[in-house]
């Protein structure tokens, strides 16, 4: 893709709505930004219809602000809460049939590598826990087994949020939800551990309460996926609507999770570590 795609034609430049002018003049395309720059540039994300205090929307905002080269990134999604903000974001986005995201991402990555052999085209799967751990688990695992050079980001709100609160594989055992009144009967699926076993070269478990860690994880995951192989970032994004807490308690809830049951963890293979050292990414302490 050429950067010309973000250059307006002279004839219609004045007619561009203001948010596009902001993206062109002060967006993250030509001068990559990080989450440290949030508030000082026009973000890729737009006002979205997520519930107040939504952890998923925060995860998406932080995740998109951390992409190393958004103009050369395509996000692959699947139905669920994440769709609402991602479909409005100003970067390439494709929503797949539920659960198919890693298969579609694999195909796209291979196609882009053939079409643009000299250029890095990042394919990032960004979906909810239902997409990764339940309906798309087989496709996700197989993409990792095959060593596809894609990044998978799970926005884990531990529930099927937009369909009324059914339990997902990632809901903790015993969790009572709107549509699981007797409580969940089995443990949270250990997708993070499965990622390591299945061949992910880099995997991180993080919450939205730690934006710097989250930002570094996404950035590293994308950079490693370019060179080495599949990467996985599991982000805890609590849902005030279904987990029944006040919308202004999202960060507090995530902080609590980070201390107790969602402790930060970073795993990388030697090859992935060498890749990060080579490009100078390991110097950054998070």
């Amino acid at each position, binding site marked *: 893709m*050429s950067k*010309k*795609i*973000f*250059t*307006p*034609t*002279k*004839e*219609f430049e004045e*007619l*561009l*709505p*203001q948010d*596009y002018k902001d993206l062109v003049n002060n967006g993250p395309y030509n001068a990559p930004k990080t989450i440290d720059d949030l508030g000082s540039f026009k973000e890729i994300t*737009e*006002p979205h219809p997520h519930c107040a205090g939504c952890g998923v929307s925060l995860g998406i905002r932080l995740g998109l602000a951390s992409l190393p080269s958004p103009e050369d990134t395509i996000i692959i999604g699947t139905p669920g809460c994440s769709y609402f903000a991602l*479909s*409005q*974001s*100003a970067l390439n986005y494709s929503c797949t049939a539920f659960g198919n995201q890693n298969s579609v991402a694999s195909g796209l990555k291979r196609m882009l590598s053939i079409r643009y052999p000299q250029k890095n085209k990042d394919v990032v799967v960004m979906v909810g826990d239902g997409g990764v751990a339940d309906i798309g688990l087989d496709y996700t695992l197989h993409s990792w087994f095959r060593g596809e050079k894609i990044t998978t980001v799970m926005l884990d709100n531990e529930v099927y949020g937009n369909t009324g609160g059914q339990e997902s594989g990632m809901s903790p055992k015993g969790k009572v939800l709107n549509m699981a009144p007797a409580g969940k009967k089995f443990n949270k699926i250990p997708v993070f551990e499965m990622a390591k076993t299945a061949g992910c070269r880099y995997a991180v478990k993080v919450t939205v309460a730690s934006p710097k860690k989250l930002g570094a994880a996404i950035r590293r995951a994308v950079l490693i996926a370019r060179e080495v192989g599949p990467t996985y970032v599991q982000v805890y994004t609590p849902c005030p609507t279904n987990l029944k807490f006040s919308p202004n308690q999202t960060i507090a809830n995530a902080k609590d999770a980070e201390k107790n049951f969602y402790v930060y963890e970073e795993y990388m293979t030697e090859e992935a570590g060498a890749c990060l050292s080579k490009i100078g990414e390991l110097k950054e302490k998070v």
Partner: protein
Amino acid sequence: MIQEKYRVLPGPEGFITPSAAMMGVVLPDSGYSLVEGDIVPEAQAVELIANKLINAKNAVICPGPLLMWQWAESAAAKAAAVKELAETCGAKILPMPDYRQKRINPAAEISPNHPNVTIMNNNFDVCVFAGMHSHHANMALRLIRGGTSCYTIALCDYAACEEAMVSLRDVDAGKIKTITRKVNDMKRNSGYLPSRG
């Protein structure tokens, strides 16, 4: 049972608007155009477009991403031609810079996902789509046909668009300039402009 030929006419066609292709409307070959579902010689369609634009009470031209962004050399020439056409026929320009389903200001841009609402909000009676990808133009034009009485015109780079009431195919800057010349000729003939020479 003899089925009546389906006509692609101004709506409102209804909540579930049938796709023109499913109703038997086929795309024209090179040198021909579509007018309300019929294949006609291109010159006839150009004349009708000029007529509709000049007689419109409130016309709008909606340049899509292929005209809004400088992605190819041809984009600038075509954008200039579209702008000249809008100025000649006094049409408003409402851009559609991309197809995101985001919040829009209907006075500044046409909604990609609810174009019918933007059309109704502004009371447009003639609407021209140019520089839009076919997959999106098809859906947007059908929405407009379904929910409004606006007369739709598609200036297509490729094989024309059956969802518009009038559609030209293989449109480049030259073909848009032909429409502009036709508009000027009609203005002259009707006394709006001084005659040539």
